[in-house]
């Protein structure tokens, strides 16, 4: 067994500007010069601190792990846990502050699909440009060209500038180029969260094939289902440190165990979310069909959710929803306000939205919830609070005794009628 990636004590420190600015201006440097000069000639006044007192944060702290040849390793963790920073350090985009990494074999990273695509260039031209950016030799692009085009299903538009492409076509072409990357070690960041379901399936299949062909893959993802399906092993990061390094199911269980439990969970400060700042979900209340607060619901009964949110800007007809995930993070039930035709109108300030899910016939066990708010066609997230609250379903007895619902054999129960013919 040989390790192809060996990381030893990797740490990465970032400086945060004092005034919350990312960029200095050259003007400030010039105007600070006289002060610096004064300080230099009067060193004894005890104020040795520079005027820009910089705060620093450790995005990664003392990360060590090995990846064996042919292994597919998932890196999971909440937002800000350091997943993307780790991938950037591994792919040499940014330098570690401390530590050492040794990588054996040709490595290629894919942090985004379509990096460097130019809107004015045609599909054909972008295939070559993107290929060159991803480090593919021209010979390799030439030989893979037909395959790329076939995979992307865009042959009719090859000589059209990509600015006229639909977003689906654009993503397909971008992924197709990336999918033909040739490397021993592939570092991939969440590229699967794009495109329609059919295309996502295709992408997953491609990664699975890559993994089967003996290549080593390090895969950063929020999608627990794909981590579970693709990875041999997973690493959970939290605040820049490795928390668990084990099998995917073990890691996902630990990852989801910090979801809040209770009938009223406050989510205003929940860090793991995808938000555009227009609104923020503050609380999620869970109750049974009668409106009595509860965290344990009998399978098959009604369930009432209340989302308390605050809109910082008025939004017309926002869409609300809740995803019920399995204990391994797989989405199972997706309920949303447009399913009942709710038109919320122009919403601003604090709001309270109540949803009742009827006859929730999920198997008994633990589930995790993600409430969300999106725009009126549910196409852009306004605030998506990832895997933040827990829900437990208790066994129910059917009309004819215990239903014997074992989550090993199913996830969702439907009434059925049986007869002997």
């Amino acid at each position, binding site marked *: 067994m040989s390790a192809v990636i060996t990381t030893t004590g990797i740490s990465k420190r970032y400086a945060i500007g004092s005034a919350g600015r990312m960029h200095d*201006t050259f003007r400030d440097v010039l105007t600070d010069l006289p002060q610096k000069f004064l300080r230099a000639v009067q060193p004894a006044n005890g104020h040795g601190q520079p005027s820009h007192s910089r705060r620093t944060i450790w995005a990664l702290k003392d990360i060590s792990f090995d990846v*064996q040849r042919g292994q597919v390793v998932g890196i999971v963790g909440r937002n800000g846990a350091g997943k993307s920073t780790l991938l950037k350090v591994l792919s040499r*985009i940014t*330098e570690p502050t401390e530590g*050492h990494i040794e*990588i054996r074999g040709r490595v290629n990273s894919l942090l985004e699909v379509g990096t460097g695509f130019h809107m004015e*260039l045609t599909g054909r031209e972008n295939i070559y440009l993107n290929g060159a950016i991803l480090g593919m030799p021209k010979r390799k692009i030439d030989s893979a060209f037909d395959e790329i085009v076939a995979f992307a299903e865009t042959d009719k538009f090859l000589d059209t500038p990509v600015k006229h492409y639909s977003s689906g076509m654009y993503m397909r072409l971008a992924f197709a180029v990336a999918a033909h990357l040739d490397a021993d070690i592939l570092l991939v960041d969440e590229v699967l969260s794009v495109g329609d379901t059919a295309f996502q399936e295709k992408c997953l299949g491609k990664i699975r094939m890559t993994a089967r062909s003996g290549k080593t893959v390090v895969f950063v993802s929020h999608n627990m289902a794909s981590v579970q399906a693709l990875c041999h092993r997973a690493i959970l990061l939290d605040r820049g440190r490795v928390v668990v390094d084990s099998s995917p199911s073990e890691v996902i269980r630990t990852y989801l165990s910090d979801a809040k439990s209770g009938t009223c969970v406050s989510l205003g400060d929940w860090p793991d979310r995808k938000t555009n700042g227009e609104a923020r979900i503050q609380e999620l209340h869970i109750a049974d069909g009668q409106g009595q607060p509860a965290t344990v619901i009998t399978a098959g009964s009604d369930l009432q959710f209340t989302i308390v949110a605050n809109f910082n800007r008025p939004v017309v007809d926002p869409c609300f929803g809740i995803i019920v995930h399995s204990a391994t993070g797989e989405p199972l039930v997706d309920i949303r306000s447009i399913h009942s035709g709710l038109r919320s109108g122009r919403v601003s300030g604090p709001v309270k939205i109540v949803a009742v899910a009827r006859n929730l016939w999920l198997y008994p066990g633990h589930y995790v919830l993600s409430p969300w708010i999106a725009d009126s066609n549910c196409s852009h997230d306004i605030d998506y609070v990832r895997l933040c609250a827990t829900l437990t379903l208790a066994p129910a007895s059917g009309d004819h005794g215990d239903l014997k619902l074992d989550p090993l054999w199913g996830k969702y129960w439907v009434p059925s009628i049986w007869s002997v013919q």
Partner: protein
Amino acid sequence: MSTTDTGWTPSRRSDPDPLEPVLHIRPSSGRARFPFRELWEYRQLFYFLIWRDLKVRYRQTYLGAAWAVLQPLLAMVIFSLFFGHLAKIPSDGVPYPIFSYVALLPWMFVANGVSSAANSLVNNTNLVTKVYFPRVVIPMSSVIVGLVDFGIAFCLLFVMMFYYHIVPSARSLGAPAFLLLAIILSLGLGFWFAALNVKYRDIRHIVPFFTQLWLFATPIVYPSSLLPEPWRTVFGLNPMTSVVEGFRWCLLGTGSLSLAMLAISIAVAVALLVSGALYFRRVEKTFADVI
């Protein structure tokens, strides 16, 4: 570490291959070196970035290639009218239009090259934050792209020489050497400005102002023969002086280029290139964090 319950079996090819490349990632030590070998490995990216810039430019602008000629041509017309015709600035005995045009050719190349190199990293933020490659490729390609415009504008010079009955002598073979000096100078300043622009975003506004002042500190609208010695030689501290006077000497057979002036200019240009490249290398590791 335990991999027992992960369902993973090691692949058969498990012996370390001695020919396999081994990459080491660690915090860089203080010494900055120019990545000649890596640059060679990434030559294809270099080529494609130039190709992209050319394609996009000639597709986006209606004028396309004509713009490459129009820019120096219009400047020449204005300069000839105001400085040559009205202000009667001497032109070393050649017609003023060709006197200024021959200087504008390398000037436009350097000025456009420096300002596009200065913005090159910021304009390619998505590349810098998502893909690894030697960052010097970006400002270098944006300087080199300017050679195409230079070549197009140069054709007009032949037309003008024909019109003014100026026969090129064997000296014109020396022009590429001065073009090389212009490239060295553009790269040097380009590296400095590009790297500074990532950290200090007001460099973007300083560069146009700088080039404007630089235009008049370079003998483009006037000959350097206006200056008495030893100041004329000191003028060589601005390497553009030697580039411009060198072009005049090679192509028109006039001008007041001296070896001392040229030596000073070469020294300054090379110093800018070396210091710019080293500064760029020293700060490039933070580009992805601050851009």
